[in-house]
């Protein structure tokens, strides 16, 4: 306490007179009385040791903005970073809607006072359902990694088997999380990828499939951007009686076949591409989808919203489907756990999908594939530069191999940064077998001039 009591804008009852009156109403002599149950030996005997506060909004804002000025963001440079988080154009109405106070500050209201929240999330699931050609889509989980981990657990529970095959051309981070998350119930085995194409090594897959296998987990496109032949792989997996789980970039589905169509039993992925800013990793959300089969649906841990008639004829309402699956209802008897995750990004992805419509999704997907193809053509002409996976078709990203240039990726990227370009993500640590390789991503934000600028800058950097 300072000598002059501070009134805080965020704490209305910090007004001394009000505080005193309220204390009187409770019959307490001081706030200390409310802490009577906290033993002395547990009490802090000093104030918290924190930086001096910036009590005025004006000074706080200036302080934070000065810190932010130490960042250099992708809007002021050309960035070709991908690897699970992508720079796409975020439509203004996505920001407008997720910035609305109503959505931003709502939480766990009922389907009546929060009717709009329920409808917006149910519509998100519905539009994802159209994109995926599947009838069941969960409300968002944390991110695509979590969706993948949960999908594996769902498959294990559903099948009663404890072996899950993981494609090795999945992101190392994702494989790490899947294993940590699932290994109490599941034994994981990795399936190799073909070094020429970066695609799944079907021979290795055949060798590892058995009647013990619950599922194969595969990303399409894979971490290197390569597109595998879904149907062929699904055929192998099904012949072993296993399930196929496919992780997919939803933004690819205007041009690529939805995995359910070639036999995936569970489809999952990340919705960051669908209208979320990258925000240094703050824009992620995961989805899980499947056919509407009761046994499979009962394996979902997350909330599922359903539409229902109300007591007014012709009126819709919404509510929780099969709530008794969840840990909210059943604690450890429910499926995994459920809680706050990424609902606002679900609503935003709904706005995105409604804004793109069918034609927008097709154009986005095709445009990205063509930009990638153009970039591959142009980049492969640079001396020493090699496409790591010439044998595959790519969506959004691909691996460039710098091994023959005599420069490390780190050196190249430093040179590019001087030219206001963020080069591709360095894979030399996570995939040492790829040598000095980097993952380059291209989206609709990149114009031909941008790609040409990258080519020119790389030529300079490699020659220097």
């Amino acid at each position, binding site marked *: 306490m300072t000598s002059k009591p*501070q009134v805080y804008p965020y704490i209305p009852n*910090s007004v001394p007179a009000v*505080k005193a009156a*309220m204390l009187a*109403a409770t*019959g307490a002599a001081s*706030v200390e009385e409310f802490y009577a*149950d906290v033993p002395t030996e547990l009490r802090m005997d000093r104030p*918290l*040791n924190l930086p001096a506060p910036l*009590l005025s909004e004006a000074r706080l804002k200036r302080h*934070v903005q000065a810190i*932010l*000025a130490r*960042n250099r963001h992708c809007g002021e440079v050309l960035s070709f970073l991908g690897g*699970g*988080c992508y720079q796409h154009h975020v*439509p203004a*109405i996505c920001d407008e809607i997720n910035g609305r106070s109503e959505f*931003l*500050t709502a*939480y766990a209201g*009922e389907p009546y*006072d*929060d*009717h709009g929240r329920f*409808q917006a999330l149910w*519509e998100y699931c519905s*539009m994802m359902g*159209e994109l995926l050609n599947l009838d069941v889509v969960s409300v968002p989980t944390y991110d695509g990694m979590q969706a993948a981990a949960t999908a594996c657990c769902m498959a294990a529970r559903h099948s009663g088997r404890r072996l899950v095959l993981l494609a090795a051309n999945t992101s190392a*981070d994702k494989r790490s999380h899947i294993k*940590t998350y699932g290994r109490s119930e599941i034994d994981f085995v990795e399936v190799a990828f073909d070094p020429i194409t970066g695609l799944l090594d079907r021979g290795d897959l055949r060798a590892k499939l058995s009647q013990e296998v619950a599922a194969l987990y595969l990303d399409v496109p894979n971490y290197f951007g390569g597109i595998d032949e*879904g*149907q062929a792989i699904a055929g192998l997996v099904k012949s072993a009686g296993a399930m196929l789980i496919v992780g997919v970039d939803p933004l690819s589905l*205007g041009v690529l*076949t939805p995995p359910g169509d070639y036999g995936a039993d569970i489809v999952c992925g990340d919705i960051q591409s669908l209208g979320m800013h990258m*925000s*240094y*990793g703050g824009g992620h959300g995961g989805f899980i989808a499947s056919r509407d089969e009761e046994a499979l*649906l009962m394996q979902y841990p997350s909330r599922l919203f359903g539409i229902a*008639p109300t*007591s007014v004829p012709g009126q819709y*309402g919404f*509510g929780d489907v099969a709530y008794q699956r969840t*840990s909210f209802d059943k*604690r*450890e008897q*429910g499926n995994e*756990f459920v809680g*706050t995750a990424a609902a606002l990004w679900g609503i935003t992805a*709904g*706005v995105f999908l*409604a804004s793109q*419509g*069918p*034609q*927008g*999704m097709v154009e986005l997907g095709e445009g990205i*594939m063509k930009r990638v193809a153009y970039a591959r053509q142009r980049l492969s002409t640079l001396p020493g530069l090699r496409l790591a996976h010439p044998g595959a078709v790519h969506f959004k990203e691909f691996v460039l191999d710098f091994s023959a240039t005599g420069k490390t990726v780190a050196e190249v990227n430093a040179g590019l940064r001087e030219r206001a370009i963020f080069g591709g993500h360095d894979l030399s640590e996570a995939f040492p077998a790829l040598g000095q390789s980097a993952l380059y991503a291209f989206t609709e934000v990149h*114009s031909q001039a941008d790609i040409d600028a990258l080519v020119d800058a790389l030529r300079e950097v490699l020659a220097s």
Partner: protein
Amino acid sequence: WDEPVIFELSQPGERALLTPELEPAIEAAAHDVLFTLPPGMRRKLAPALPELSQNRVLRHYLRLSQETLGADFNVDVGQGTCTMKYNPKVNEHLARDARMSELHPLQDESTVQGILHVMHEMEGVLKEVSGMDAVSLQPRSGSQAIYANLAMIRAWFEARGEAGERDEIITTIFSHPSDAACAKVLGYKVITLYPDAEGYPDLAAMQAAVGPRTAALIITNPEDTGIFNAKIREFVAAAHGVGALACYDQANANGLLGITRAREAGFDLSHFNLHKTFSTPHACGGPAVGACAVTAALAPFLPRPVIVKEPDGRYRIEQGGERSIGKVAAFMGTASIVLRAYAWVMNLGAAGLREVAEIAVLNNNYMMAQLLKIRGLSAPYAPGKRRIEQVRYSWAELCAETGVHSGDIGLRAADYGVHYWTSHHPYVVPEPATIEPTESYSRADLDEFAQIMSRVADEARADPEMLRSAPHNCPTRRIDESCLDDPKRWAITWRGWQRKLAEHGVATPTAMDRAF
């Protein structure tokens, strides 16, 4: 509004956005790439998404937003355990700055010194608030932080070679459901303690439950009842006594900032929800951050990567050592939420955080004094004792008298423009209501909420049927809940609904019928 489902608004051919054009050179170079796709991999039919103009998309979602009762709009004290506090707009605007929103998580360290500074400083804040030695901000929610803490506990015993023997986690029924559920995910058997007659966690039961199979205790304090467990050190000691760890679920630490810490009670791990105690917006249920705070002994097990501050003041990102549990979430978690929490703490400082706690507790005890004047409402357990930041009440008496349930009261409260829920299953307290006023509401706000409760209780006596058919003043009336548990009728998507409607022959309402 009586806004249709968005698919009903579709007008074929309309566009809300156009796609950036491809330059002719790209078209020329890449025109055949679509034909090079593997067999069957090119989508045949465009997805059947709705087609709308931008104006109509916007109008739809704006109307839905108005049908959502955000915390900004109501005296949101009826959503106990959730710590619905004020989310300052300045923090929101700062977090939407392009220098935050347009950062890619794989950028070179040299280009993200600002956000690394914020994250490192926030780790420092949480270390001080918890008394622990190391923090990870990677988990994307409180539940995921619980998961991460329990994963560290598992890794700890694995590193010591005791994993096989230690397969039990002890928790209490008034701790968050995720404490039990996450333990199960990690392969543990869950032992749940029930309160003693006074409502306190039962120390004798704890002492009976621990043993060589115990990996950890995970417990909330105060529990959802708002009662502080004064014997918490003894609980921790009981765990430690058998070689187990103790983990503090401090998702909601709002009443205890600067008062008491995980360190003083002897915990090995704890976690905070930045969207509860640290004022980041709930956002309809995320994005969020759950922060893990651990002792030095457990620090090597934290998720990777970690942020390291060099002597010259620059920040580096390190991948972490062998013992790390690895990744729990993509990249470094929800950095933009961390920024909001950082701004909140920097505005308040140490004295401000203490004031948050004290006023949250004052508000709660004031509210309890007001609410207990209502006939039919009681605060079970610990009679005559104060509470910390919330109270779990019971409408059991009112229900016995009128047949009106706590859930009905919540739906009627919605008619008065405030949220109210009954909190987590199972209902150990009959007809529960958990009220948590936080520090964000004025005395007048609290009085208004108490008056609404009082009025609803009167209505329950005067016209119980009106309450049982509530809400009457919300966007919709009560739904037919039987649909939602019936596989033949549940519909998680529009396509599912259309298919099942076709199968069952229920007519779909048209927009004009529903206009008032």
